[in-house]
């Protein structure tokens, strides 16, 4: 059983190959980590899966259906939600209204969307900030807001781009717990993450990228021992003695 299948994805920007022949699969309910140094093509991969950019080659299928040529909003309605590495809240709208946009995907009833949004905000611990404008929230709160917004679309697959990036150390355990909670609600998660401790705690499987290519795909413990991952990303100190 496969929820998401990425097959032979290639994306060039001019002379730069951002993604080269990337293939991997995500099963329903799985939690997959994506790691790799800056410029490895992680965010480009998310953009290709969600239809923000079109690949030069390769296919993305969801439940066996080819979604490669679909628009971002169509892919979202098929149950794929995402967060952005560079946060993109609707600044002039309240936190509640931000989340309602996601909830309104599945209902035209504004009242019902408001209740669903309140629930989603509560589930990320932002209930008391519901009526604050998004621009007034801290970075950590905005991260939670993006999670709530994505969650409100009731995704089957949730792509998280650096949930712990740019937040202070103290906030990280809370965010990890939150990602676990979200996962427990059923959707499959693909998580881009730089913090190795975080990814080792969360991921059931890890896909490692380097210079746009998949260099390893396996259990977290295997990935830690993988010579190419150590060379490209982890560094000598991670090499088992």
């Amino acid at each position, binding site marked *: 059983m496969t929820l998401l299948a990425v097959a032979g994805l290639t994306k060039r920007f001019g002379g730069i190959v951002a993604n080269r022949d990337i293939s991997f699969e995500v099963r329903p309910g799985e939690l997959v980590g994506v790691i790799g140094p800056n410029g490895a093509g992680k965010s480009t991969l998310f953009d290709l899966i969600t239809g923000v950019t079109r690949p030069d080659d390769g296919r993305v299928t969801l439940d066996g259906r080819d979604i490669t040529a679909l628009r971002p909003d169509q892919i979202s309605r098929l149950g794929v939600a995402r967060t952005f590495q560079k946060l993109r*809240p609707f*600044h002039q709208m309240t936190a509640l209204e931000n989340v309602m946009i996601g909830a*309104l995907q599945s209902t035209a009833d504004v009242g019902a969307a408001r209740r669903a949004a309140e629930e989603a905000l509560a589930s990320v611990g932002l209930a008391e900030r519901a009526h604050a404008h998004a621009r007034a929230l801290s970075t950590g709160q905005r991260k939670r807001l993006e999670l709530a917004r994505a969650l409100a679309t009731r995704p089957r697959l949730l792509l998280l781009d650096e949930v712990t990036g740019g937040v202070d150390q103290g906030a990280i355990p809370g965010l990890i717990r939150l990602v676990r909670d979200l996962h427990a609600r059923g959707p499959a998660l693909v998580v881009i993450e730089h913090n190795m401790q975080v990814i080792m705690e969360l991921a059931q499987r890890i896909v490692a990228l380097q210079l746009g290519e998949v260099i390893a795909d396996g259990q977290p413990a295997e990935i830690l021992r993988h010579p190419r991952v150590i060379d490209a990303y982890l560094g000598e100190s991670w090499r088992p003695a």
Partner: protein
Amino acid sequence: MAAAGPLRPFLARAVPLLLLGAVAAFPLVFTKPFPRHLMIMIFLYGALATAWNILAGYCGQISLGHAVFFGIGAYTSTLLIREAALSPWLGMLAGAAIAVVGSQLIGYPVFRLRGHYFAIATIAVGEIIQALVINWDWAGGARGLFVPIKRPDSFVNFQFHESKAVYYFIALGLLLLALGVTRWIEGSRRGYFFRAIREDQEAAASLGVHVAREKHWAIAVSAALTALGGTFYAQYVFFIDPESVFPLSLSILICLVAVLGGVGTLWGPLVGAAVLVPLSEGTRVWLGGGGKALDLLIYGALIVLIAVFQPGGLVGLAGRFRRT
């Protein structure tokens, strides 16, 4: 403020009703043409700016070509009188329908552009349409069209020479329609989608908002309401030409009215019209023909002041006082 507690819901209901009563009684009290004309212009520009606000204020697509839809409304009803002796009321609906079709055709190319580029493209579209009409002899060309005068006054003919009071209530009706449509959109799913697109269209799309479709809806509603105003203008002035109903200056004025009052708010465009129209009509009356440039000077100064000190518009001022 304790006393204001129970008073506030009462006031919130009473004040609009009182205002509406005052507006309804106005033409009974003021029987001279000028004050009525002034109010008619406030209603008309209020309606046009409110219509513009749906596309630009809520959906964030700053159009500087709305005179196109105004002109389509004016020309459609006037040409239908000439060609088919059709009542301007039906011509008004036809004008709105053609404006909707036109808006969709314009939307396909220009909605691909963002921000300033979108605004510039709408200016270009407006200029092209005006140039086309100037060279379209069948539609009167640069000489324009007269609405044939018919007496006595009749509702079917949309002509009222005896008194401006009927125009007053028709213009008020257009304004209330524009405000009502805005209010309805504001509270609906579509209104939320519009605002999300204004804030960040990629993020909106990632949440399932069909960005192109919503923009096309916004411009369709906005264009239809603007075209109604165009027909009203033709039946009020009885003469239209490309210079009076298709000019860039009209597109800009509609934008200025809304910006002054407050974009993206229900009442902002009307507040802007209530301030700018008396200024413009007043300078014209009190200073004669030489006043034409002066009102623009004052507009310019006002816009600079608003942009620097109160980007939310005059409506934003009320919020500022409420908070303190």
